[in-house]
């Protein structure tokens, strides 16, 4: 077992699955000759050639739809978006075609494919390049949505996603691509729809996914010094969401803070909060709080961006509120 970067874990997952199943191929902007805008697909063209590792024009609607068509007709495409901000111009192919054709055809059509790429903000990239889309994709039935937080989860989940017969939205982050973690060399799969407790604690439950898991971890370390043991739950899959794991934790902690990089209105935090108040009402000793980006587009200026981005301090403040310590 060796330390591997997030991008290496993703590459291993894709490479292993492409060796295993020749129906799997990948296409996207700069994935082939350029070795990937963020070097995730480095070396894959050399191994698999231009028929299975394919550079596309800047035509997100076009190549996303080509992927859906190829999946309908027996292939298992991986469509890489340079970032999910750019998938917006092609989103009709995802939320209408990929998500609904199986249902409209009465189950005649199978659409086994993965749409993957970086999601949410990555520093000062401005308003159009910093959006977290997980709640949008989770809102529309027919899709599975995954947001991996670390290399180990990323590899196991991406392999499961590629083998899954549903269209899967697989979200990553430019900012975690370089992050390292022990990743087994032998094959392993992580089941879709199962969350994991990333830190045990009994005083408060923190639900966080993707990049936010690390923000929650930093906050938990601070809180620990303060005698507060936070339990961190990473759902890993946004849809289907492992709400039972959260309920179990809340039954123990009676307090919940959700950390979510989405905008607040109808974000993942709103959904999880709603379900918990509905299904664990009697176990709550305090209102559920959320820590999200504010309801404004990402600003460019460094200072404003830092204010905008959810910080450990924001999480700590929320925890102090739900534990009535301030």
């Amino acid at each position, binding site marked *: 077992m060796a330390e591997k970067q997030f991008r290496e874990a993703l590459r291993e997952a894709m490479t292993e699955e492409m060796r295993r199943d020749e129906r799997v191929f990948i296409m996207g902007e700069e994935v082939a000759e350029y070795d990937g805008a963020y070097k995730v697909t480095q070396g894959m063209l050399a191994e698999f050639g231009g028929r299975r590792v394919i550079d596309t024009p800047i035509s997100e609607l076009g190549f996303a*739809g080509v992927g*859906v068509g190829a999946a309908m*007709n027996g292939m298992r495409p991986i469509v890489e978006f340079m970032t999910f901000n750019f998938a917006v111009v092609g989103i009709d192919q995802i939320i209408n075609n990929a998500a609904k054709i199986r*249902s409209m055809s009465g189950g005649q*059509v199978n659409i086994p494919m993965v749409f993957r790429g970086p999601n949410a903000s990555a520093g000062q990239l401005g308003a159009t390049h910093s959006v977290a889309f997980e709640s949008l994709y989770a809102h529309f039935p*027919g899709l599975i949505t995954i947001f991996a937080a670390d290399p180990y989860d990323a590899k196991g989940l991406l392999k499961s996603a590629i083998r899954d017969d549903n269209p899967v939205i697989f979200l990553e982050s430019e900012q975690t691509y370089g992050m390292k973690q022990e990743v087994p060399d032998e094959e392993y799969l992580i089941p879709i729809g199962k969350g994991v407790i990333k830190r045990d604690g009994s005083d408060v439950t923190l639900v966080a996914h993707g990049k936010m898991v690390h923000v929650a971890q930093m906050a938990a370390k601070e809180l620990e010094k303060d005698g507060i043991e936070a339990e961190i739950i990473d759902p890993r899959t946004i849809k289907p969401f492992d709400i039972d794991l959260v309920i179990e934790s809340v039954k123990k902690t009676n307090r919940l803070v959700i950390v979510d990089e989405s905008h607040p209105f109808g974000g993942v935090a709103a959904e999880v909060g709603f379900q918990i108040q509905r299904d664990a009402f009697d176990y709550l000793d305090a209102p559920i709080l959320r820590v999200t980006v504010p309801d404004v587009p990402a600003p460019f200026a460094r200072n404003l961006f830092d204010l905008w981005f959810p910080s450990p301090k924001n999480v700590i403040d929320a925890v102090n509120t739900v534990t009535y310590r301030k």
Partner: protein
Amino acid sequence: MGKKTEAAGFTPTGAVYKSTKLPKPTKKTHKSLGIKKDELLGLFECMYRQRRFEERAAQMYQKGKFGGFLHLYIGQEALSSGLNHALNADDDIITAYRDHGMGLARGIPTKAGMAELFGKKTGCSNGKGGSMHFFDVEKHFWGGHAIVGAHLPLGAGIAMANKLRDEKKVTVCLFGDGAVDQGSLNESFNIAQLWKLPVVYVIENNGYSMGTSVARHSAGELVDRALPYGMKHDIINGMDLFTVIEKFQQVAEEVRNDSLPHLIEVRTYRYRGHSMSDPGNYRSKEEMQEFKTFDPIERLKTYILENNIADEKKLEGISEEIDKEILEAIKFAEESDFPDDEELYKHIYADDDFPYLK
């Protein structure tokens, strides 16, 4: 609408004939096209079946037997029938929401088609799709699609899968003249040409996008949308069955050999309204009358009689058989069950045990 208005407006007015002139039909005979007599009668039957299916469907719709949208293909049957004849059974076809004709021509049984309109479990999409979403994947009919232009990339993708498997199959993607203005066309055409995908794009130019004539929604000639990419292209008369067959036999063979995409503008005409709610005030009686004289079914009938391939009686016999078939289909549709309530949560995901959010 006042003159002043016309002068000042952004969107051009009138001028429906632009882009709708019918090219000359082929001079070929059924023999020279390799069509046997019984095949020819089969093609007549095929066209007539689509016609009667929809005429009856319209009646049922007006009687309130089923809901949703209903877009009739009446007038355009030469394309669906000729295209299906020209292609192999394992070639792939995908089309827009005006899909009954193409679906039936491809082999969806009238019973399954009618039942789909009625939203019954015996329908060709198990009652989940309705009029706009006929599917029969076993017959390589990849469905009717209702977001205008959204299935253009799907056509390229279906072709790409065939190419990746080194199957020498042709994929035909049909769409209306209105779909030409969707950005998906630019993206799909560029990718299809750049990647040499074996897909044939077919514009079913019936003169109108809903109430908007081609001249009012598209600048330039529709077929010229192929020019930027150096895509092979042609315009044909879509009211003449033989012309359609000749063209698609030739194109299909070409595609099997060189795996290069085509754009074929097929000029046809929609005799009915856009949907059942459309009074059709945007076109003149004269225009309708003129195009009625090109009725593809009447045309074929005349050819059959003039060339003594069959006599009136024979054709009437075929027609009566079809009429019966359609009535039986209606009976079948009416008597079929609706999907079971559990179906609401079926076929959304591949897994039947998917944990749906409540």
